[in-house]
């Protein structure tokens, strides 16, 4: 079919209002050809709305959708060339697997001989050739999803949209299908938008992750950057887990990096993307796995605390500490074989690993 390389998708200042409720607010995204971008966000943040706008089922209140630099807003869903895999797969129950996959080619008027060849190719691609004669209800969830993907790819869409495609699968199957979808996406080089509220899925599958909250994109970056350099406290808290401590910016220390006084009075050095003004309130975040425990004070930036509880989680132990001033701090440390857990009440020092540090966000 047409070129193997994907198409660029661009969203320009997209806003969607329902009456006076703003579901999607001024979204600008450029998704490169062949890229897989995950839209990650809590329920109701506008992910599906954005997908419906890209696919043409909903006309945005403001802004433009462009494929390869060409606006497509005037094109109906049937003309846009956007393939969608739905959460419930949406296979036609009255058609066999073969007929399902052939459907798009048929309605687009592809000649029978060519159509049959393409369907065979698709069936082989998703390893479903032997099920061609069955009906959707006779297939398992994973098989149905493969068929849904094949049906989509058969018409060679410009853009592939996956709306929570793995939500209905159990854990093991989900991993298999994630790998499978990733393989197909790579093989076809098709530009893909994956909607999910599962952060592991987003981080493991996507080239870039766009974290959304209340109709806005909070940050779009590579999975590692999203995790290591969250742009906002929301992203920090939504992706992975983190400790949040309240503090006030005090004067910068000798080398110029900002210092924050925590509620208990202790002062720590922090990193921040936003400029911090002295005296303003901030929230300081650090991930449990970026902290170490020490018996003695290891130097600056360490926080003393008393062990409240220890949660052994196999390879890891999570300690819940009570800091001075009453704040709670979780520290997750790798557990050595046979090592005893720290008892409740033990006095310890928590300090960031050399490569990590505290991040401050304006409160």
């Amino acid at each position: 079919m047409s070129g193997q390389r994907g198409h660029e998708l661009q969203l320009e200042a997209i806003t969607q209002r329902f009456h006076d409720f703003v579901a999607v607010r001024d979204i600008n995204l450029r998704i490169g050809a062949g890229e897989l971008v995950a839209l990650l966000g809590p329920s109701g943040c506008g992910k599906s709305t954005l997908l419906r706008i890209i696919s043409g089922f909903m006309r945005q209140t403001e802004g433009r959708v462009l494929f390869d630099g060409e606006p497509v807003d005037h094109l109906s869903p049937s003309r846009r060339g956007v393939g969608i895999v739905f959460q419930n797969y949406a296979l036609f129950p009255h058609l066999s697997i073969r007929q399902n996959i052939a459907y798009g080619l048929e309605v687009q008027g592809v000649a029978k001989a060519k159509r049959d060849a393409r369907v065979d190719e698709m069936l082989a691609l998703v390893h479903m050739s032997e099920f061609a004669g069955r009906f959707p209800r006779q297939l398992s969830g994973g098989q149905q999803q493969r068929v849904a993907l094949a049906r989509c790819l058969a018409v060679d869409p410009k853009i592939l949209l996956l709306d929570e495609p793995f939500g209905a699968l159990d854990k093991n199957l989900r991993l298999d299908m994630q790998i499978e979808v990733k393989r197909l996406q790579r093989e076809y080089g098709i530009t893909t938008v994956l909607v999910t509220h599962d952060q592991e899925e987003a981080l493991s599958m996507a080239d870039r992750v766009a974290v959304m909250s209340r109709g806005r994109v909070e940050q779009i970056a590579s999975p590692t950057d999203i995790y290591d350099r969250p742009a906002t406290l929301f992203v920090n808290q939504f992706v992975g887990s983190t400790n949040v401590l309240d503090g006030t910016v005090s004067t910068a220390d000798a080398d110029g990096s900002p210092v924050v006084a925590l509620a208990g009075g202790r002062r720590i050095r922090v990193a921040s993307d936003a400029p911090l003004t002295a005296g303003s309130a901030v929230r300081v975040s650090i991930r449990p796995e970026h902290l170490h425990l020490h018996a003695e004070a290891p130097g600056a930036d360490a926080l003393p605390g008393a062990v409240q509880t220890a949660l052994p989680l196999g390879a890891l132990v999570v300690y819940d500490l009570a800091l001075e001033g009453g704040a709670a701090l979780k520290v997750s440390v790798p557990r050595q074989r046979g090592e005893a857990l720290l008892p409740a009440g033990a006095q310890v020092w928590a300090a960031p690993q050399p490569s990590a540090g505290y991040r401050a966000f304006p409160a």
Partner: protein
Amino acid sequence: MSEQTLVMPAPPLPRRAAPSFEAWSLRCVFGVLAALALVFLVAPTLVILLTSFTATESLRFPPEGFSLRWYAALLDADQMQAAAWNSLVVALWTTVLCVLLGTPAAIAIARSKSPWVRACDVLFMSPLLLPALAFGFAALIFIHRLGLRPDLPLLVLGHVIVCTPFVLRTTIAALTQLEPSLLDASRSLGASEWTTFRRVTLPLIARGIGAGAFLAFMASFDNVPVSLFLADERTEVLPIHLWQQIENNLDVRTAAASGLIVLLTLTLMVIAERTAGLTRQMR
């Protein structure tokens, strides 16, 4: 959270599940209803079937002897045959028109959220709730006012009004079960709205429409109240003809005709259940 549910002690199991009062009373009500249905629906049907096989000249139960003479006599009953033919023609026209009108109406109603459309839904359903006798009488006065005389098209029109609700209801039910993402999937694969309707919507609601058509056909075929007012001598329909025969001369042929109708209906019902899952569509 899940840990908590894990350590919750299991509630002690009762030694033997004693039937609760609710379950018991439910069973009683079901039993009584089933018994009533048997006694008042099935038993009379059996009585009329058995009577129709009588060898004697009179309508009497229990029948004396056994013969098919009254069924044979139906072959010569010209008037009754004409009435049956009329009923069939009216019922078929009614069914076709009900489907042609009811299906698009159902689609519009199922799609729209507008209060006006809701109001139309209630309006179209009202013939099921209003007494058909009042409607028939009113329709007769109305067409007289218009300077028309009862004839076959007007009779069909009357039947269409009281029978369309059946198609409407079953089709709306089928449409509400239709997964909207199927239509989106079809359109995103390049199908126009019309193609989507023809290739996805229609096949998936066909059983609902079929069930409604069957009900509309049966409702028209044995409709009395509307036909009473809107049928003239030339368009006399079977139920009214049978009623007059029974009233005038207790003709045993009416029993044979009834028997025939019962058997035909049963056959149709079995076919409808097998092909369209009739009872499933009515839920």
